[in-house]
């Protein structure tokens, strides 16, 4: 593994001060900072190769096409897709999940069938399925969590049944950090005849992704949560599904022949990529994958597990602090939600922000989960491969002062 100093030196954003204090960025589950390699790749594309891909036979057009398709090949290899034709570039994970809901959901799910979600789903993997359920007369069912924030097998067997047409679930919760046993869930859902849509937005930066080993039918993630640019995301889908699905958006690029009254559609993956794509985003995402692979996901995971374990221990020493999530780093990712008694998370965020510490407060786009937990909002810290134990110590020290600021004495 590269040294921590060498890794941090790759991130210009981390060297800045806020309110005169060194920035401590602990909001990585929302978005990660960007390494120089990614910034350079995007800039070089715009400076040297900018053109509309797949159109025009001129030099730059070919360059842009090559870079865009190379990025697709890199993504396919990174997630171990069987073919790069199964990799569709989208704006982000939300758009990828909407693509599946609009195209697959609206055409394949029928009345009285069931769509199963986990109660911890992010709104992006929940609201689109509410739409499908409502439009098609299907029923939404939820997998609820055990007291230790895990998904029990009995719950899986209870909720996923022959009636289940589709299961939509995140590999890792963006609130609890829980990593769900998706391989088993997917295999069980397949036995029942259901397809499985995986939201990988949180897991991809932290765990090795292998869509074939998981046997996921669909798998969505965002570039900006894995050191890439905003505005680029990925939908992986099994070819058999993608072939059978109608297009999502219609326009240029996604067509074969356009007559006055009818149109035939382009082959995969272009059928799902209407309009001029975000080439610099794709190029940046490819650079982010290179960056991650240079370090290796295995080393990233080992390092981040260490941070999570350390932070879980330190946070438990903070008086009046309650953690929402497993207290053991095993089986969870580097995302820790908590509450401080008597302190609203938004006040917590403001107070630690004054020490230069960025954390997230609110419902984390998971309102049904917050209601289930009985917490209107929580504070959340989340780590990336550039965070340090010193930063965790500084955060814990700052958190210890929060109650005093809010007039609670200690």
């Amino acid at each position, binding site marked *: 593994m590269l040294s921590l100093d060498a890794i941090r030196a790759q991130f210009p954003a981390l060297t800045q001060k806020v309110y005169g204090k060194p920035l401590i960025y602990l909001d990585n589950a929302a978005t990660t900072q960007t390494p120089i390699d990614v910034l350079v790749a995007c800039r070089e594309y715009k400076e040297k190769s900018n053109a509309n891909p797949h159109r025009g036979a001129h030099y730059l057009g070919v360059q842009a096409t090559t870079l865009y398709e190379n990025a697709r090949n890199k993504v396919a290899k990174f997630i171990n897709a069987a073919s790069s034709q199964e990799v569709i570039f989208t704006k982000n994970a939300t758009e990828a999940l909407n693509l599946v809901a609009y195209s697959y959901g609206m055409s394949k799910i029928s009345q009285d069938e069931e769509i199963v979600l986990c109660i911890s789903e992010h709104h992006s993997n929940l609201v689109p399925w509410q739409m499908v359920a409502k439009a098609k007369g299907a029923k939404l069912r939820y997998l609820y969590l055990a007291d230790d924030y895990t998904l029990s097998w009995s719950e899986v067997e209870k909720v996923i049944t022959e009636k289940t047409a589709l299961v939509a679930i995140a590999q890792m919760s963006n609130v609890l950090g829980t990593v769900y046993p998706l391989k088993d869930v997917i295999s069980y859902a397949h036995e029942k005849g259901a397809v499985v849509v995986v939201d990988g937005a949180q897991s991809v930066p932290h765990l090795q992704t292998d869509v074939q080993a998981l046997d996921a039918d669909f798998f969505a993630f965002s570039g900006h949560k894995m050191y890439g640019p905003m505005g680029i995301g990925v939908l992986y889908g099994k070819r058999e599904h993608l072939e059978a699905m109608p297009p999502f958006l219609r326009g240029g690029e996604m067509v074969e022949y356009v007559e006055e009254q009818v149109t035939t559609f382009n082959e995969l993956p272009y059928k799902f990529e209407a309009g001029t794509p975000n080439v610099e985003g794709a190029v940046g995402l490819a650079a982010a994958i290179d960056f991650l692979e240079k370090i290796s996901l295995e080393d990233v995971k080992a390092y981040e597990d260490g941070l999570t374990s350390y932070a879980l221990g330190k946070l438990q020493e903070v008086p009046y602090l309650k953690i929402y999530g497993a207290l053991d780093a095993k089986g969870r990712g580097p995302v820790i939600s908590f509450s401080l008694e008597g302190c609203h*998370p*938004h006040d917590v965020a*403001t*107070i630690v*922000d004054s020490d230069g510490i960025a954390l997230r407060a*609110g*419902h984390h786009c998971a309102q049904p989960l917050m209601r289930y937990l009985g917490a*209107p909002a929580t504070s959340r810290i989340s780590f990336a491969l550039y965070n340090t134990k010193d930063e965790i110590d500084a955060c814990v020290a700052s958190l210890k002062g929060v109650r005093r600021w*809010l007039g609670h004495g200690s």
Partner: protein
Amino acid sequence: MDLSALYTELILEHSQKSEHKRQLKTSTCSERGHNPSCGDDITIELLVEDGKIVDAAFTGSGCAISQASTSMMIDLIKGRSAEEAQTLANIFLGMIKREISSEAELELLEEAIAFQNVSNMPARVKCAVLAWHTLTEAMKEL
């Protein structure tokens, strides 16, 4: 960032225990206000007789800023006409948007002038203005 300019004693007092945090036995109108991004969620109730707000109260949960702002607002509007209350709400919202800075006007806000600093904190503006927007909505029912 100067936290002591935000979490003043006055604001903390109002946020921790407010005599106005209760339910009215009877009310003329009520309105729920919500900041979806951070979870502030309040309901304001008004009892209006002959155009005068004779009683007002709130319930719900939220951050210190939203709770204190609601409490101070009720302090201010109780006993006033709905029209006066709307004028005060406009002054408060104008203060936060930095559109109103005349001291004579701001003084009408009494204790609620304590939120003037929030106008420098974009992340907290929504918390401070929630009650005042909710009040405006509630009075539309009158």
